[in-house]
């Protein structure tokens, strides 16, 4: 996916607090949340970067408990994307 106007990409790093990692159910929730937005969103873990709207992509990150994930959002609603993801990552500990 191309990132147009990369100077407008916003970035934020989150930590996976779910004990079982970002497994199927939370990963599915994450994709569902992002599907509502127009922005291109990518997630980076270490040197791997995937399309955040792709469940297979997210699963291949194998984001275990404690992993640091950097979200890169680019598009008209990029700020809402980061807001929603902040909510998501802050409440994830309750989702087993």
């Amino acid at each position, binding site marked *: 996916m191309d990132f147009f106007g990369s100077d407008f990409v916003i970035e934020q790093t989150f930590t996976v607090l779910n004990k079982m990692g970002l497994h199927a159910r939370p990963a599915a929730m994450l994709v*569902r949340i992002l599907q509502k937005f127009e922005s291109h969103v990518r997630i980076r873990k270490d040197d791997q970067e995937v399309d955040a709207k*792709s*469940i297979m992509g997210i699963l291949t990150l194998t984001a275990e408990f404690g992993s640091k994930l950097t979200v890169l959002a680019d598009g008209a609603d990029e700020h809402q994307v980061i807001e929603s993801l902040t909510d998501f990552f802050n409440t994830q500990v309750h989702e087993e």
Partner: protein
Amino acid sequence: MNTELDPKVFKGISASPGIAIGRAFVLEDMDLAVGRWQVPPEAVKAEVSRFRQAVADTRKEMLTTQQKILKLLGKTHARLIEAYILILEDPLIAKDVVKNISQNRVNAEYALSEAIAGAVKALESATDEYFRERRHDVLDVGRKILLHLLGHEPQSLDDLKEPSVIVARNLTPSDTIHMQTKFAEGFATDIGGRTSHTAILANSMGIPAVVGLHDISRHVRPGDMLIVDGHTGTVVINPSPDLVDNYRRERDIRLAEKRDLEGLRDQPAQSTDGRRLTLAANIDSPTEMKGVLSNGAEGVGLLRTEFLYLNRAALPTEEDHLQFYTRVAQSVLPYPVIIRTVDIGGDKLVDLGFAHLSKSEPNPFLGLRGIRLSLKHHELFRTQLRAILRASAVGKVKVMFPMVSGLEEFRAGRKILAECMEELRRENKPFDEKMEVGLMIEVPSAALVVDHLAQEADFMSVGTNDLIQYTLAVDRVNDEVAHLYEPLHPAILRLLSQTVKAAHAAGKWVGMCGEMASDLDVTPILLGLEFDELSVSAGLVPKVKKMIRDLSFTDCQALAQEVLKDPTRDNVQRLLRQFQKR
């Protein structure tokens, strides 16, 4: 033509005795290895829409399944299919496959298989077991789309049109449910054990089966000549004519033995010194019904009802249940049938075709199954109980609850049963007011408080598979620990003895309907422990009966006392061997 080929010999686990000689029917395991071809530029658009159509059809199918699960098992479970739908909508499929088709002008099947293979490869390298296992979900979705692309159903056992030996990677109830049993001469499968569905089905049909053959399904081609030797667990592909002759002779000898056993059909299961047992049959599905009386079983000791929930678009109605129960109850008269309320959960959920469901619970064997599921989903339970009660008006029907762990659950089940009785009285629908209500002893806690349970239950039946695996904490399908799955473990023998004693002290009868009941080596112990009833696959009834008829109850009682004192399973095995050699 096949006789010119080198014979190949495979060793597996013998799952059902007998010798089958015949042509192979190979049930294909779908794989994603598909051909690649170039699409002409003018056809690219059509190829893309063909792909989109297949995805849309797959999605429709998944939504139907989701509705089915929602009705059957509730919201939590249904949510899990969401993950499948998300994979389907994944940009890697929805966008990248389309891009691959348009840019490289390749066929949709190939573009799809590349995308799937890429994701699978990435997941395979994960160090975490959980993430590595997710590749099966991705593959599943890939297969489903591929089937729609190819526009055909996978080959199934419904296509079996002539007598054949069935070769498959694995057989599940959903594979065999519509199979014309008269065409199945034997089974040979890559995976499975002595207690797998294949083994149980083959035994009840009285046909040979060898399982655990690793990769035989890849070596056999449709129409190959096969020998399946269920006695030794051997399968020969393309045997020499001499070998076929040898096996034919052996088969004839065995068939003669079988005819001798058939002579016992109308004889009682009684020891040489007059101890009489009830010998009944276990039934998994309607196809096995005809074997009950023809093998000389005195009724049905375990009617499993899970199959009623398989391969259908909606939940079974009260009438669906009633029709089946009535048919069984009437066909075994004057003998009784014991209907076990549904035990879906654990491995059976996977058999239901909803493989992902089991993943909802980190430990499904300790999760929502058996009476627990019934008590949680009252509607499901009531429908079944009402039908069982109504069937009791036309035959000798008893009911039992699976997976009871203590008195509270048994009481809760009975309370709902009493409510159903009250409803039926109001509706003027007849039923047997004195219908016996029992339970399975398969959870160790139930075996430990069996004296309390025996006060309230009319009867008890020991389900050995679960009792053993829960007591010994051994998953019998896990190769690493399967050797610890030991029916003769002193702890198991103690629980069995305790169960029989408690039942008899309360004046109740007690049976066994697990695999252990059909193990001829163990029959002397079960007789000696004073079980009142044994229920085994219909095909095994004559053998168990012959065994009982050759035994002295007094000797068996002495043997039982001796093994109960023994501290190790090795000693128990030795005592048993000595006993057999007498």
